């Protein structure tokens, strides 16, 4: 007993001996930095181990960050900076507790653009690599504070008052378009990740660029092939000529990421320095041009396909001759270009142009479910349904004709070849459109949920809790399907005639086009206009074959 008592007496003085303990050992001291005195915690750890600075310079160092704090670029910028220079020190367990790395990443995502405008890099003391991650001890505002919370004038000092406060504006990661209007939109902040992550965006944008380039290339080739050989293509094939033109032009906006940055082509800037994805504004000319090229010409493409199916029905089902259809081509043009113009004008009048967060391109129905339904889903569905009916009717008639020709022993190989080409063309056009429409319905369903919790958040009475993030793969399928219709035009230009046409165009031009043209017409004409002479009268048929003039008369009679 005496020995242990002696040992205790000997060791106790050793533990309290050094004059350097206060200077070297860490302990909790009251926060004395003026900028950080209104924090929710009162004690900080000293010495500051994060910056390895002595106490003399902490005050001066903190003053450098005053301009950044005043921008309020993130609701917790003040708390974050003070957690670096005055980390929290829990009483009873002296240690420095600073912010988590995720908090640093979020603050940097929101505030880095402001520093970039002044040509300043992200400060070294705020380098996110040095911040801890759970399960290491670190400070992190709750999920409500970060994702669904509201920008308070100052950090709350009590947890209960913070949780019970009523929502007065947009969530912290959305931009209030008009703070004075209680029903204004909460727009998506520019380059924010509200519905999609950065990886989703990068994936969709790279895939869409490749598909847009291929689609535009194929459509342009088809268009030029039609242009250098106009007489070869007549109605209904001529509709594909205008269809390829529309597909080519509507693909161009998807190539703009190659040379125009996302904020420039899809964002609208407010006066306070913040910018948001365009929604119902025309201030961004790139956004407006992107919408016009994409929506007008994609609508025109759908209408030209409808016109193709209609003229196919007239030709195959109603036995119209190409000359008769061409006489009515002005009406076909009027319907195709006129209706697409009307739809575009209506969208502009109703201010339904908006930018997609995923692709950073402007169109219709990216952030508005009603606009998506009435300006995209319904018109496309009408075109596809009516066009399919016309095509089915036309094909049914051609099948009946083919059967009747076969009973007479006539060679129907050319008619069958034409039917195969038309069939493939229609399938290659209908299938991507149907896939895209299914994906657009999924988008409509997702948008209905998300719009109420984000863009219309100010009109909700409670907190805006967000639904599950949407599937980026389905959105990408919609984009890729819309960029795959150009390949259907290849069915009309992949042939030996195309090679001949391009050869003549490149080398001779006008000289050798005339001789090639003459042998083609007689060979195709008999198939399109079969004779109807009865088999029992062979002498009459023989007499007509011997006289060229007589071969024209039966067609006129028919």
């Amino acid at each position, binding site marked *: 007993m*005496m*020995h242990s008592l*002696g*040992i205790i*007496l*000997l060791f106790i*003085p*050793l533990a*309290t*001996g*050094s*004059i*350097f*303990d*206060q*200077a*070297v050992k860490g302990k909790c*001291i*009251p926060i*004395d*930095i*003026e900028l950080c005195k209104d924090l*929710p*915690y009162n004690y900080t750890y*000293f010495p500051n181990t994060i*910056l*390895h*600075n*002595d*106490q*003399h*310079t*902490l*005050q001066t*160092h903190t003053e*450098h*960050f005053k*301009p*950044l704090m005043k921008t309020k670029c993130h609701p917790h910028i003040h708390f974050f900076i003070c957690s670096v220079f005055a980390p*929290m020190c*829990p009483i009873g*367990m002296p240690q420095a*507790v600073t912010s988590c790395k995720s908090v640093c990443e979020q603050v940097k995502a929101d505030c880095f653009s402001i*520093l970039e405008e*002044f040509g*300043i*890099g992200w*400060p*070294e*003391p*705020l380098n996110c690599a040095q911040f801890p991650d759970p*399960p290491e*001890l*670190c*400070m*992190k*505002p*709750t999920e409500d*504070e970060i994702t669904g919370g509201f920008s308070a004038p100052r950090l709350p000092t009590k*947890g209960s008052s913070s949780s019970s406060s009523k929502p007065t504006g947009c969530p912290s990661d959305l931009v209030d378009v008009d703070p004075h209007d209680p029903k204004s939109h909460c727009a998506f902040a520019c380059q924010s990740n509200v519905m999609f992550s950065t990886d989703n965006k990068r994936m969709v944008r790279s895939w869409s660029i490749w598909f847009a380039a291929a689609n535009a290339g194929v459509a342009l080739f088809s268009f030029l092939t039609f242009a250098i050989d106009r007489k070869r293509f007549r109605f209904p094939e001529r509709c594909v000529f205008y269809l390829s033109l529309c597909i080519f032009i509507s693909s161009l906006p998807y190539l703009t990421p190659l040379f125009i940055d996302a904020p420039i082509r899809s964002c609208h800037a407010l006066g306070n320095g913040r910018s948001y994805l365009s929604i119902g504004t025309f201030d961004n000319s790139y956004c407006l041009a992107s919408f016009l090229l994409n929506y007008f010409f994609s609508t025109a493409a759908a209408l030209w396909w409808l016109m193709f199916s209609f003229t196919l029905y007239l030709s195959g089902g109603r036995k119209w001759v190409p000359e008769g259809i061409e006489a009515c081509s002005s009406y076909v043009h009027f319907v195709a270009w006129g209706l697409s113009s009307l739809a575009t004008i209506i969208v502009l009048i109703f201010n339904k142009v908006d930018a997609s967060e995923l692709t950073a391109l402007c169109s219709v129905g990216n952030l508005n479910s009603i606009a998506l339904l009435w300006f995209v889903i319904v018109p496309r569905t009408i075109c596809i349904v009516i066009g399919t009916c016309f095509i089915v009717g036309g094909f049914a008639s051609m099948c009946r004709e083919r059967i009747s020709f076969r009973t007479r022993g006539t060679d129907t190989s050319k008619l069958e070849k034409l039917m195969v080409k038309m069939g493939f063309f229609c399938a290659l056009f209908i299938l991507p459109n149907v896939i895209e429409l299914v994906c657009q319905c999924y988008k409509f369903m997702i948008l209905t949920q998300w719009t109420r919790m984000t863009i219309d958040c100010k009109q909700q009475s409670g907190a805006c809790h967000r639904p599950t993030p949407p599937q980026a793969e389905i959105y990408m399928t919609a984009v890729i399907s819309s960029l795959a219709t150009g390949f259907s035009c290849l069915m009309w230009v992949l042939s030996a005639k195309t090679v001949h046409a391009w050869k003549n165009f490149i080398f001779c031009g006008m000289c050798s086009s005339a001789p090639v043209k003459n042998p083609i017409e007689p060979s195709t004409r008999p198939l399109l206009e079969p004779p109807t002479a009865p088999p029992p009268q062979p002498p009459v048929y023989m007499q007509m074959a011997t006289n060229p003039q007589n071969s024209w008369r039966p067609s006129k009679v028919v």
Partner: protein
Amino acid sequence: MRAAPFDFFFQSTALSTFFILCSLATNEIPTISGAPAGKIVQPPKPNILKQGCPSDLLHSRALRSIQLACRTHPATVISAFEGVQEGLQNCANRLRFQQWDCSEAGNIMHDPPLLRQGFRESSLIWALSSASAAWGVATACAQGWIDDCACNNQMGQNEYEFGGCTHGVQHGITASRKLLTKVGAVNTLLRKVEKHNLKAGRLAIKKTLISSCKCHGVSGSCQQKTCWKRTATLEHITDYLVEKYARAKLYTDDSVVKTTDLIYLEASPDVCKAKSVAGRVCAWRNETHTQGDCDRLCCGNGFSIRHEVVRVKCDCEFVWCCNLVCKDCIQHRWISTCNGTPPKSLIF
């Protein structure tokens, strides 16, 4: 004379304890009268530095330079002495489970018997004392406790604001050299070894300097950057020198040694014969770690194991805002102690 070190130790201990209690009470007050507005609370100058040298240092006969410095720069001498004390404690902690554990080395300023021999252990004490004295003066200088520090003399407050206290390190090294180097015409092999090891200790401070940088400019951008050097922690310096001690070399007239290496003249005595190891903690074990080798440390006398159950807080999580929520965990420890008769020196 034998009781003198203990008297001084008790005096400094009591004064430090009283000072700590006053500091704790003072820190609870939100604002301190006299402190500059907006400045960080800084540990005030310890009372021990204001009183001047104690009598044992004032009348030291081994190191005459200490007598002279006590009359002109008492705060520097006391800082160096306290630094050496701190270094010896770190050494004892570091060599806790080795046969020789620095525990009875004695302060170099008291001319202990160990430093009159050329053992390997003497080389470590020389180097560590030199480094610790330099560290102590540098730390006191950084805290602004020494009036003759270069920072205050040259630039005043400006030096603190922009460049930190770069001169503190050099000031500490200079003070250590002047205080601990013996003067005189005696030129023996032991004196040569001593000077070499003292220099190795000062070089250890230089080898372990840490570079600190600060960025100036709007929002902390590095438009202008200021860098300075400061000493590492004394634990780090002690580790550095213990590694050198493990690789110390026997010195002969024709041997070539580096200035950073430790050298000694004669083999170490047998620790088992020099003193009793009874009552020493020879090993320590918990559920995940084991330290110490009792068979070697207890000189074959055997040891006993004591089981301890300690309650610690673990798995702490931060709850916004701002509380720590921890779990109460039970940690098992097994502490081994050498057998034998306890030495009489432990009885007061």
